[in-house]
């Protein structure tokens, strides 16, 4: 390429990124603050052994800043279980990234970002999901909140929302039969970048009330001996129309070079907003859930090992939203391992907010 062509190329490239603003140039640099929090009462009865806890589970502050129409910064700082001391509680920076929103169909992020997997990892405020605690599927199959250092390309076009994350991988040596990949998260702490993780999500949102999509995540996870590749594939759907709410997710993880060969699970929620029937301002949503998940659905050893963590669970409860930003919750659930005849009962009460 000669010098003239190179000059033209640079000029054209610069031109393509320049916007012309006139009388509608109303953008002002501004900081925004938000947050959410939730306090829970949990009662557990395991064959007569009971436990009662009252816990301010999460306190989260969101701080953002719009430098220009395209450049912004977003962050989320979280304290879990009220204080941090001697390995109890958790203080973490769950999001902190620079965002360059070039066009609707193309944007870039760099920093501490969320993995785009499932419905709840990226939208985990208490007003947005049923049940006092997040679904167990969103703990054991998709380890919410799943975040780390990395880069992302995102956009939306014709109702398709897509995001490709290129970020820190997991520590494969910490994978376990009872927690699947959950303990392998590096959480952005001086991340070992020797094997990066690829995560692609596509959602379709052009049908009123429906969000449907899926994601694929692959990482040759880090290990002291042989690396442990894993692939997580999941699908999800959320439908909200005329008071009816249907939510469902299914996910499967395949492993190599590990005693775990497969983890999988699903849940399905049905709810109905009664404010559609009775003329009240509050949203009153009774709901039911059925879930089954197994963090060790296929193992090298097989046998009882594959039944021990195979959990069936059902739940019913109520979600009340006096205003869109405040939620009161109550639920009752039972779960049972395939290997045991003992049912564990749970009663949970919760309050939450977001702003």
């Amino acid at each position, binding site marked *: *390429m000669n010098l003239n*062509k190179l000059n*033209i*190329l640079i000029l*054209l*490239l610069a*031109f*393509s990124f320049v*916007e*012309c*603003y*006139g*009388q*509608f140039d*109303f*953008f002002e640099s501004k900081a*925004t603050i*938000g947050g959410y929090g939730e306090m829970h009462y949990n009662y557990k009865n395991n064959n007569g052994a009971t436990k009662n806890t009252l816990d301010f589970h999460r306190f989260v502050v*969101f701080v*953002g*800043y*719009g430098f220009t*129409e*395209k450049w*912004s910064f*977003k962050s989320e700082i979280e304290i879990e279980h009220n204080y941090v001391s001697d390995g109890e509680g958790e203080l973490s920076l769950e999001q902190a990234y620079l*965002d360059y*929103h070039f*066009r*609707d*169909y193309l*944007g870039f*992020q760099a920093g501490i970002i969320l993995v785009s997997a499932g*419905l709840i990892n*990226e*939208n985990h*405020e208490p*007003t*947005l999901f049923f049940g006092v605690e997040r679904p167990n599927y969103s703990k054991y199959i998709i380890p919410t909140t799943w975040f780390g250092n990395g880069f992302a390309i*995102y956009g*939306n076009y014709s*109702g398709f*929302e897509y*995001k490709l994350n290129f970020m820190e991988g997991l520590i494969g040596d910490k994978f376990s039969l009872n927690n699947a990949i959950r303990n392998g998260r590096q959480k952005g702490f001086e991340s070992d970048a020797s094997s990066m993780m690829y995560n692609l999500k596509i*959602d379709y*949102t*052009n*049908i*009123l*009330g429906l*969000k449907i999509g899926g994601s694929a995540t692959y990482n040759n996870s880090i290990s002291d001996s042989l690396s442990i590749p894993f692939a997580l594939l999941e699908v999800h759907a*959320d439908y*909200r*129309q*005329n008071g009816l709410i249907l939510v469902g997710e299914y996910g499967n993880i395949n492993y190599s070079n590990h005693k775990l060969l497969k983890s999988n699970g699903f849940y399905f929620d049905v709810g109905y907003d009664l404010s559609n029937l009775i003329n009240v*301002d509050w949203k009153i949503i009774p709901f039911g859930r059925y879930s089954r998940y197994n963090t060790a659905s296929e193992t090298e050893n097989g046998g009882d090992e594959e039944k021990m963590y195979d959990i069936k669970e059902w739940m019913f409860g109520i979600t009340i939203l006096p205003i*869109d930003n405040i939620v009161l919750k109550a639920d009752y659930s039972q779960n049972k391992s395939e290997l045991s005849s003992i049912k564990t009962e749970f009663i949970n009460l919760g309050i939450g907010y977001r702003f």
Partner: protein
Amino acid sequence: MLKLFLIFILINKVIFANGIEQKVKEIIKNQFGNNVQVDFNKYKIPLELKNEIENKVKQKFFAESVFIWLIKENDSLLAVAIMDNVYGKAQPITFITFLGENGKILSNHIVKYREEHGSAVSNFNWNKQFIGRDEKYDFNKIDAISGATISVNSIKKGVHKLVLLYKTLDKTELWK
């Protein structure tokens, strides 16, 4: 290489029109055709009225002024379009609401969205819910979108504010 860049720029500048004025013109053309006259005004909202509407809807106006287009055909007014901004998670969302003489919404459009999450509020099907609504409507009944809660709540309040503002505009002056 040069040709590739030319194509990229062409797509950016022509197909994905990004300027607010250009997008508003496109929306007006798609809704009312080519043979309409369009008058533009920047309207400063009287302070007392601004406070009254903000208190009622529980949302501040983005600025002291909104942008108003009068869409006319043969000197007869077809619609009034009011453009304003509301905040999403961190960035403003620019939207425009078209209203008819009876105060009912003819259509609502997202002119510019500037964030990753919540862009589903730009979808035509979601915005269709506003058509035919007026100041008597309970805007809380607008359906939510999974993963776009902040944007949905902001826009439904933003549209409600414009419907209330429209009610106060001098109709005899506008519709003559």
